[in-house]
């Protein structure tokens, strides 16, 4: 491969995926804003699609500029870029403009932008620089501390702006650390605790315990040391449950079903644990302990939530997790969003023909809920294509990252991929009711200059790094 031929070394597959996504995004913004009664030219810059067209052209210009800059620039200036972004994040807190309850905009005359959108690539650069530095070892506590500082500082500043969704994006970096050698146990428990925390608040106790039990039984089955033991464990469990439930029924203790279930599961768990320990079933011991721990954890989350936190704090968490039952609040958004997507059918209602879209039943439809337009007007065919395009982009990025010779480029590539993935997973998950409603944009789709530019910079720095992957030896 020729060393200095930038344009031939660029990964055009990624660039094409980028252009496809941006173009599809613009079409849907046009549709979301479109109105039967008022017709405007597509270049009408008072309309959102007109503005987005400007942002897109500017994004192309930014991408082009990034490609022209030498790779060394990103490597040498990564900490400085990081410092500048942190500085603007502090500036936002001091002089920012508040829009939609979050103080995340910096305004200069007619121009305003969200610095938080630029925090991601800066943090990715700094993290890549630090983790690829000579003699770096992930296992050192000091390394962990510095990594935490690099990632959590912008997240914390963004959290202070009251933009919780954008702050949570930084948790995606854990996947980068995992790739670079962080123990899988940390990833496993980290994910488990996060999911348990959310689900203890979102799901009912009985449902959550039911899911946990069936998952555990599934793992018992997979970690099968012999069907004999598996059936005995099930037998023990069932007898304990029947015994305990029967006693409760006879004594009429009047305890809530959730409590009774937790009690029987814990008791059964202890019996199974003793049984597996006696029979030296190592896997079963571990699984049972994790199961007992999970039940205790979710009980304590419930207890803390209902007994320790005051109603204001509870409301905040409810709001964050999107489990507010207020039909005018978050619940309304998700419901309308599901209606819009669900009404699309297989082939969709056609471009500009979505009634839910046209008559603005989904709030924030050109920004956070842009995926509803895809769902309603292009149907399952459309949503499947969009999901596929995104996943193709992510896999392509991982593939590119893995072919880097430099640690800096690989780490940066992973960071870019997981940040896109986090946005994708949370945004689409939110529109189909599988994730709490935390307003973060869908990359390249959602209306907004700052986010489009932020994502473009994030992507194209990696494309630039990849284009000159042959230039340097790994650091």
């Amino acid at each position, binding site marked *: 491969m020729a060393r200095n031929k930038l344009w031939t070394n660029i990964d055009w597959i990624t660039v094409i995926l980028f252009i496809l996504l941006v173009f599809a995004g613009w079409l849907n913004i046009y549709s979301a804003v479109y109105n039967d009664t008022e017709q405007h030219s597509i270049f009408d810059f008072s309309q959102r699609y007109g503005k987005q067209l400007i942002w897109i052209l500017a994004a192309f210009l930014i991408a082009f500029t990034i490609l022209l800059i030498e790779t060394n620039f990103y490597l040498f200036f990564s900490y400085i870029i990081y410092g500048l972004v942190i500085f603007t994040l502090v500036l936002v807190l001091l002089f920012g403009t508040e829009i939609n309850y979050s103080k995340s905009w910096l305004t200069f005359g007619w121009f305003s932008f969200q610095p938080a959108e630029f925090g991601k690539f800066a943090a990715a650069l700094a993290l890549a620089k630090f983790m690829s530095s000579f003699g770096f070892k992930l296992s050192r506590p000091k390394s962990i501390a510095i990594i935490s500082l690099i990632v959590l500082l912008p997240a914390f500043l963004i959290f202070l702006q009251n933009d919780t969704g954008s702050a949570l994006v930084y948790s995606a970096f854990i996947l980068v650390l995992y790739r670079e050698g962080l123990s899988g146990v940390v990833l496993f428990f980290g994910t488990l605790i996060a999911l348990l925390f959310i689900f203890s608040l979102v799901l009912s106790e009985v449902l959550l315990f039911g899911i946990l039990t069936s998952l555990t039984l599934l793992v018992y089955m997979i970690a099968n040391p012999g069907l004999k033991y598996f059936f005995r464990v099930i037998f023990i469990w069932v007898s304990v449950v029947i015994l305990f439930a029967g006693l409760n029924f006879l004594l009429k203790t009047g305890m809530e079903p959730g409590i009774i279930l937790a009690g029987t599961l814990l008791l059964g768990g202890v019996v199974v644990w003793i049984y597996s320990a006696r029979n030296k079933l190592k896997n079963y011991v571990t699984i049972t302990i994790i199961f007992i721990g999970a039940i205790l954890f979710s009980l304590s989350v419930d207890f803390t939530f209902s007994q320790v936190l005051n109603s204001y704090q509870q409301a905040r968490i409810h709001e964050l997790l999107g489990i507010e039952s207020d039909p005018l609040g978050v619940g309304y958004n998700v419901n309308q969003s599901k*209606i819009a997507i669900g009404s699309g059918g297989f082939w969709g209602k056609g471009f500009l023909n979505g*009634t839910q879209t046209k008559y603005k039943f989904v709030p924030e439809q050109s920004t956070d809920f842009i995926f509803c337009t895809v769902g309603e007007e292009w149907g399952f065919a459309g949503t499947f294509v969009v999901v596929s395009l*995104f*996943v193709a982009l992510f896999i392509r990025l*991982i593939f590119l990252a893995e072919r880097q010779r430099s640690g800096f480029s690989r780490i940066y590539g992973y960071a870019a991929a997981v940040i896109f993935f986090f946005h994708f997973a949370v945004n689409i998950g939110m529109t189909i009711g599988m994730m709490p409603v935390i307003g973060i944009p869908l990359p390249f789709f959602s209306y907004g200059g700052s986010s489009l530019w932020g994502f473009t910079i994030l992507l194209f720095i990696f494309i630039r790094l990849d284009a000159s992957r042959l230039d340097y030896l790994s650091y």
Partner: protein
Amino acid sequence: MNSFSKRSYIVIGIFLITALVFSLRLFNLQVLDPTYKVFATNNVLREVVQYPARGLIYDRNGTLLVHNKPAYDLLVTPREVTAFDTLYLCEMLGITREEIEAGLQAANKYSRYKPSVIVQQIPPEVYAVLQERIYRFKGFHTQSRTLREYTYPVAAHVLGYVGEVNANDIQEDRYYSQGDYIGVSGIERSYENGLRGSKGVKKYLVDVHNRIQGSFLGGEEDIPAQIGKNLTTSIDIDLQLYAEKLLQNKKGSVVALEPATGEILALVSAPVYDPGMLVGRVRASNYSMLVTDTLKPLFNRALMADYPPGSTFKMLNALIALEEQAITSNTYFPCYGVASSPIRCTHDHVSPLHVVEAIRESCNPFLWNTFRSIFSKFSSSSEGYEVWREHVLQFGIGRKLEIDLPIESKGSLPEVSYYDRIYGKGRWNALTVRSLAIGQGELGLTPLQLANYCAAIANRGHYYTPHVVREMEDESIPEKFKTKNFTGISENYFELVIEGMEQAVNGSTGMLKIPGVSMCGKTGTAENPHGSDHSVFMAFAPKDNPKIAISVYIENGVWGARYAAPIASLVIEKYLNDTISGNRGWVEERMMEANLLNPNQPK
């Protein structure tokens, strides 16, 4: 450093699993689950009811009696309301601040998202002003309805009125929903199904703010409202106007019908009221005023009041006796001596006398003897009474006539069991119930029944069920109004009583003589324990081929010939001759000027 490169598969695995879960969820949501498609339609569809205009009502000669005028309701959607100039709105609509506030509160309670009516029936002239300024009142909009308007201020009891449906109406007929109008009484009620037409539905697409964006499927699923059917009544509006005028300052009724068809020509229950009083926003106050009026103007005397028929009943007793061959045309009874007890004659006349003379002279002893001779033909009194009662029933007395108006009384005609209960079984006879011989006692006839009975005599033995509607657009009138009801009495016996009725009119005061018309009639006096007796008269004319049969009751009119008879003669003259002859002007004047609202009149 690449020792962990295998972990890239785990990361890719996470991506793929997420994508798979999303795709499955999307497939379920978009392709498998139909509920969201229904929700989506419900979201954007707003069905707007189209109210049809009610059918028009005409009189028998095609004169328009009832039509529609536009009126407008002001509706409010509480959620959309912003601060507005309450005082200005109140002034424009002529309502108080409290009314607006109470209305807003009620609307708020009902729904913050759905419109509810806050001010009803705004007249067009106010609406014109309001419509120009409505943009100042966010959350308010208007809807057009139609209100009834009456060409003449008469015939309220026939036409009835229209009001808002109540919970009961909605439950009985799912056609109605809250706020709809329904005929409450009169023709409006009994012909409601035809008059109302049928409501239409227009489907609109609305946006999230409930603003209409266009029609749904280009109006393909719209159902147009169908205008109500027009009605032609049998009422002669000129006759109705004239009769109502004659009954001014009196209580009572006039029912005139055409014997050949059973069509009602005029139906008056006095005191009358203007049907326009029960329309629009003044209705509530007018209604309570009418309800509390001690003269009971809302009470339809013509169909609901049971008056004793008095002497007008004598023809019926004579007819029954002739049919049962208890008497013949040559049977003579004296009206003095032992025959005259227990009921005396009230005035001097030839004696003994036969049936024609008895009717002419309204001879009580003759009728008593006739009545007794019916009973004596049978082995027991109750059997005799039963036969007598069956004959009476055949004239439409003691049962509902099934007129095409919502309510009527069946009058009063006791059964055998009634007398058994009072006097004991087998312990009563013709003498006990002798009052029936002269139309007093337990008997009660509505003015409509009396007029119908008169029509049966005029027809020499049959009648058509009285009705007020001649035809309805695209629909024929029910078969029962075209079917003869036979009285079961031979035609030739009628000639005898008709002869008597003609002589009765001819032998009376000059007040009853209509130039060029042979009127057959009979006066009556209905005993009234609460004040002066009621004046009763029934008549038909001309004698051959009768065109009109009439019953007149004038409460506290003292006796039949005093008011009821002259009024009936004037109505008949008006109908047959179209005008009152010059030499009867004084009769007309005296009748119109009479004020009988005081229940105690000089004898």
